[in-house]
Every structure is written in C-alpha cells, then in structure tokens.
C-alpha cells in the first residue's frame, strides 16, 4: 500500500513513507522518449519531503524494462544524494 503514487505512460512509481525510510517502488516500464520529464520532478519532490536522516530505497523489482534515457535522472538523483550525505539503497 503506497502513501502516494505517480503514473506516466506505462510507468508507475509508488512512494511509501515511514520514520526512517522513503521507499520508491517502480512498476511497469519506463519507455518514454524523455523519461526525465516525469522522473526528475517525482524524485525532486520526494527528496524535498525527506530529512537528511531519511534513507531512500529504490525498489526496481517490479520494473519490467527501462530504456537508457531512464538511467540519467536516476544517476543524477544518486549523485545528489551522495553530495548531500543522504543514504540510498537499491533493490533489483
């Protein structure tokens, strides 16, 4: 059960919050021509809702496919987290 979710085309991102974690569950396929138009605002909004102590968990187990353009906003999110000291785990 997610607290919030975002849908664009065949991609859905569920967001679940608890005291220690923000879990971003990816479902479906990320196959848009410019996936960053959808993904970057979702990640930015989610990150602005979390404190520095929060751990982000990117759960890709239900993601069937992503194109290479999807990698860029993800890598940029990871880089931001690294720079500000946020903790990130990924599950594939």
């Amino acid at each position, binding site marked *: 059960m997610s607290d919030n979710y975002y849908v664009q085309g065949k991609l859905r991102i569920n967001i679940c919050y608890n005291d220690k974690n923000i879990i971003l569950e990816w479902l479906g396929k990320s*196959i848009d021509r410019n996936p*960053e138009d959808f993904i970057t605002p979702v990640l930015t909004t989610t990150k602005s809702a979390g404190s520095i102590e929060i751990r982000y968990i990117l759960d890709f187990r239900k993601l069937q*496919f992503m194109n290479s*353009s999807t*990698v860029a906003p993800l890598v940029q999110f990871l880089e931001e987290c690294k720079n500000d000291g946020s903790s990130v785990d990924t599950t594939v």
Partner: protein
Amino acid sequence: LNQKKITIPPVWDLIDTTRESVITFLHENRIDDDSSIAIGMVTNELLENAVKYGSFSNSRNSIDCKISIDSDSIVVEVINPTSNDTEQNLVKLDETIQWIRGFQNPFEAYVNRLVIVSSNNLHKGESGLGLVRIAYEGHSIVDFYTSDDNLYISAVYNL
C-alpha cells in the same frame, strides 16, 4: 540460420512492441531468458536511435529490424533512412563507437559514461548511454555502414 524481419513506421510507441516481438521470437528459437532480454534491450536502443536520428519523409517512412540467429551468434540489424541533414548524427555515432572501443572493456566505458551523465550537463534526451549499454549490458559489438541513403547498424551477440 533463422531470421525475422519487422518493419515499423518511426513511431515511438511501436518500439516496445517490437522489443517484445523480438524476445518472443528468440524464446521460440530456444534462446535462454538472459540472452533474449539482453537482445531485446539492444533492439530497443537501436530502434530508439533510429526514430530519433533517422531522416524520414513520406516516401521513406519506415525502419527495418532484422534478427538473425545462427549457431554461435545473434545479430540485430536496424536500417533507417539518412540524408545530408543527418550526417552530423553519423559522425557522432562513429565517434561514440570509437570511444567505446578505446576502453579495455565495455564496463569501463559504461562507468565513464555514467560519470558524465551524473554531471547533469547533457542535452535533453541525449544521455549517450544507449550504445554503451548495448556494449556492456547487451554484450554486443556494434558496427555500422551507410549505403543508398540508409544507415545499417548492427549489434552482434555471441552465444
């Protein structure tokens, strides 16, 4: 040798359908899951590039995708129209392939590209990761040539 040819118009939404058709074809030919998924991804990336960078007109408005399976390799070939207007794209394609070949292995190229991507200074929709991903995740060797105003780009996956 077993072959399949799929012809599609340059419509973004048809890329994923084609990727799935290719995976189904590979499964029908008893290609294992890991290889089929890898080659499906390779097909997807090549078709995305064809739609993005091809030179289409009313009379030349299609992309051919050919999959050939033999005893020791699978070849994905994508053919799309080009023109003088898109010559710069071919130069960039050649440079990218040469850049990948300059690394000892595809993983190094992939990591290097991720570092560039993480710097966040890219043009929209141009991560430049597609060909590197084909080489690393897709375990495939990419090459291309042009003939009769068409680009023929192929990726060879060794079984």
